């Protein structure tokens, strides 16, 4: 498979009055054409910052990409001039945000907002743009698209608005769609519809999707691969099967056991104790040490190397070291 995006050693920090927050601390992952990669983690683990950094949309200042490379096809995005970056946004890479109620401008018609990106990036006539907008609304399943173009966002329901936001993101036929918690603000029945829409769109257009979420249910439904983030680092990455059935990192395991499941009898939820570390002064070793049930002395001092379990499955944890087994056995 062909690589579409390669993020390597990405580091992002924010300068605040309290000091420097290291929100993303060396994130690396690859994305292949046409696949769906889910980035999972709890609030504040840096998943949204990672996504915004790819688009170079983190507010600068206070945010700053301090290290790493973001390679999209042959282009290195981190140092691309803003003018060229604008030609990538919306055209090659699109992004949609969490809350459809606020993601659309209340004072402009839906048609206007749908077509403005297209008009900016391509030389289309007004009629062609309108035609394309109608096609896109049809694609995302909005009935009577022609009449709806003249309506304002407040005349649509939340689910409809998210469909419009998706149509807007796809109108220039991007190769990559970054969806930052696209279903979090919707109610459950609408969530399922939107997820099905993602699947259908991917089938029809072949767009690759990076899905940022904290909802493992969403992940189970549409992800091909999963990257689990914790305290600004990707601690485990693997295919959906590998992550759900053979989680190796204690944190991934903790995430999975803290979600209710229908297929297990012992119905007790086990939450992960404690809170994530303060990213003003992140720990030297593994950031999960303080909450980890299997923590060893080494975890606190040295950050573990990446262990390659299969071609697709990598984990960063000291338990993978063969000396760990001996230690645990002797206990």
């Amino acid at each position, binding site marked *: 498979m062909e690589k579409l995006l390669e993020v390597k050693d990405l580091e992002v920090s924010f300068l605040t009055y309290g000091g420097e927050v290291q929100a993303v601390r060396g994130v690396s992952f690859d994305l292949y054409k046409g696949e769906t990669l889910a980035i999972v983690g709890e609030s504040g683990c840096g998943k949204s910052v990672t996504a915004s950094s790819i688009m170079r949309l983190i507010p600068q200042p206070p945010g700053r990409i301090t290290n790493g490379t973001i390679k999209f096809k042959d282009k290195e995005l981190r140092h691309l001039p803003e003018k060229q970056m604008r030609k990538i946004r919306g055209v090659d890479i699109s992004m949609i945000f969490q809350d459809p109620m606020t993601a659309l401008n209340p*004072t*402009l018609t839906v048609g206007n907002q749908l077509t403005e990106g297209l008009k900016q990036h391509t030389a289309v006539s007004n009629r062609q743009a309108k035609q394309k907008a109608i096609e896109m609304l049809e694609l995302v399943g909005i009935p009577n698209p022609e009449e709806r173009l003249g309506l304002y966002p407040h005349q649509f329901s939340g689910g409809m608005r998210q469909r419009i936001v998706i149509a807007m993101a796809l109108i220039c036929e991007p190769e990559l769609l970054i969806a930052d918690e696209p279903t979090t603000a919707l109610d459950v029945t609408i969530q399922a519809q939107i997820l099905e829409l993602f699947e259908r769109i991917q089938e029809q257009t072949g767009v690759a999707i990076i899905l940022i979420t904290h909802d493992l249910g969403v992940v189970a439904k549409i992800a091909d691969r999963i990257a689990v983030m914790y305290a600004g680092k990707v601690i485990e990455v693997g295919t959906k099967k590998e992550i759900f059935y053979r989680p190796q990192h204690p944190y991934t395991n903790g995430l999975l056991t803290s979600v209710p499941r229908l297929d297990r009898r012992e119905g007790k939820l086990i939450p992960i104790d404690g809170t994530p570390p303060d990213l003003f002064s992140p720990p030297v070793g593994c950031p999960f040490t303080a909450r980890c049930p299997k923590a060893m002395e080494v975890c606190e001092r040295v950050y573990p190397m990446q262990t390659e379990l299969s071609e697709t499955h990598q984990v960063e944890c000291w338990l993978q070291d063969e000396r760990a087994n001996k230690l645990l056995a002797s206990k």
Partner: protein
Amino acid sequence: MTKYIMKRFLIMIATVLIIATLTFFLMHAIPGSPLNQERGTNAAVQANLEAHYHLDEPLFVQYLIYLKSIATLDFGPSIKHPTETVNDLLGRGFPISFELGIVTVLVALISGIILGVLAALKHNGIIDYLAMTLAVLGISIPNFVLATLLIQKLAVDWEIFPAATWSSPTHMVLPTLALATGPMAIIARLTRSSMLEVLTQDYIKTAKAKGLKPYKIIFKHALKNALMPVVTILGTLLAGILTGTFVIEKIFAIPGMGRYFIEGINQRDYPLIMGTTVFYSFFLVFMLFLVDIAYGLLDPRIKMHTKEGE
């Protein structure tokens, strides 16, 4: 939309009627009458004069005559300027006051919005601090102080602009500047804060993610939303500018309507008082009516609201 406008229009008529009624009774509550000042007049002459101006009729009848004159927009002869009608005086004074007012509003709006937007875009930068210092000064210095200061410096000391009267565009500079600074400062501060808020909104992030050019994001997406509060206070500002013109006209010896307004009250010139008051209130209420319509045009949600409420 037509129903919205109709509704606003009816409210406007009712407002003017209430103001007119209040003015009438307040006017008659002031002791004295236009005819019994200065030297004593012959009793018969006095009675004749009173009959001529209907001042001998019961108050209620006078009120009806007054309402009729409002309805026909004919306020009759002025008592203190016997050779002229109130309409003549208004016709002479209003264009000048209107000119001063409109130029002031335009200057205040345009410069206020530009200052506010610049300050918001360069948030916490030098431009921001300069603009906001200017705004605080503008709000805290009363226009009559600024007016005398401007006359002293720009007209008397440096002789750049004429000090008074109203005959050429250069004559307009100082009065407009004195009158516009306050409203400009308020608009600038409001634009800045509302722009800052709008710039953090999700739809601005969406617009950036679409790869739109910065000027498009600012003018098409941000400014329209950020101007909503500015339009809201425009009504109040207009009232302020209107009353401000009385003072400014006096200081710069501008032959506008303000003079007649004050003169009318001082001399109990009933037709003149009601003429100027009704005219001013009608004008102000009409401006507020325009502001309401502008608000509906800017924010589509407002139209919907009235539709749903029907």
